[in-house]
């Protein structure tokens, strides 16, 4: 069974929803605390959302130096998948596992609402269960989600097709398509291998029909199906 570690920092949120979503998708999920130095043979590690360390200094800046991050960095260096959701994305950028930074939303407000994103890459470990160019309605909840990077880095991201999700105007929201002013409408990016992905949307919040949709479950189903295929070869 695919083993998925969900890291819990002081101030994490939706870690229980993430554990549930992995289990519903047929994976084995367990929590790893921020002080631990071992990911217990996890195949995949997920850094959840929230406000680790109260977002002091900058979102993710302190969590990046918590003991567990050394293990996450080693896990990534071994070529094993890492997903950062929201605050997890911020932590991955702070740790230098993904380029760029997530800064204060353009409108200054904390934005908590559904957005429409287009799946630009349906061939990553985290998105393979979606169709290429599929548009999904998925929740966000963040105050610092505006993705920025220097122009040459943005060019590289686009050139290497490393934008995984992009905010789009799908016509079903009575709100701006881009909720935070992210450059190039970027909602999620990956590293060059596609094994490290950071996304601002919260797929675990829409992973059970009881809340109206389980479209977010695709992320966790992708993990399980991608790694199960990889194991059987």
């Amino acid at each position, binding site marked *: 069974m695919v083993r998925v570690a969900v890291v819990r920092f002081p101030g994490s949120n939706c870690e229980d929803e993430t554990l549930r979503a992995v289990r519903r998708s047929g994976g084995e999920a367990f929590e790893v605390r921020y002080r631990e130095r071992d990911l217990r043979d996890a195949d995949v590690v997920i850094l959840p959302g929230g406000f680790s360390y109260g977002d002091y*200094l*900058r979102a993710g*800046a302190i969590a990046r*130096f918590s003991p567990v991050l050394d293990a996450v960095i080693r896990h990534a260096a071994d070529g094993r998948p890492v997903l950062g959701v929201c605050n997890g994305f911020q932590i991955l*950028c*702070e740790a230098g596992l993904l*380029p*760029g*930074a997530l*800064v*204060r*939303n*353009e*409108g*200054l407000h904390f934005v908590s609402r559904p957005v429409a994103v287009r799946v630009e890459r349906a061939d990553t470990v985290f998105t393979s269960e979606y169709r290429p160019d599929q548009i999904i309605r998925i929740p966000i909840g963040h105050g610092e989600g505006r993705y*920025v*990077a*220097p122009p040459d880095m943005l060019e590289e991201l686009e050139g290497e097709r490393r934008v995984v999700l992009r905010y789009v105007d799908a016509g079903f929201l009575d709100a701006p398509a881009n909720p935070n*002013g992210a450059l190039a409408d970027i909602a999620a990016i990956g590293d060059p291998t596609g094994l490290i992905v950071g996304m601002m949307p919260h797929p675990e919040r829409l992973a059970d029909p009881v809340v109206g949709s389980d479209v977010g479950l695709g992320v966790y189903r992708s993990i399980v199906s991608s790694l199960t295929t990889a194991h059987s070869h």
Partner: protein
Amino acid sequence: MKYRVHIRVMPRGGLLDPAGQAVEHALDALGFPEASNVHLGKAIAIDVESGSPAEAEARARAMCERLLANPVTEDFTVELAA
């Protein structure tokens, strides 16, 4: 010897600074139209135990590079209190 170090972290020039803009609009609304180019940053004060002022400053710069400032979006200055 202990040196008092004052660090200033500012959003990099040219990057959109929505907080600075909001304050600028508020100042304008309050009757300060002469205020422009407003930017919000962080001030951090640290006592640094060190053998010399130069070393204290160098260590404070290392702190900025490692943690206190984000190299993608922020610039910093380091000053030793007199």
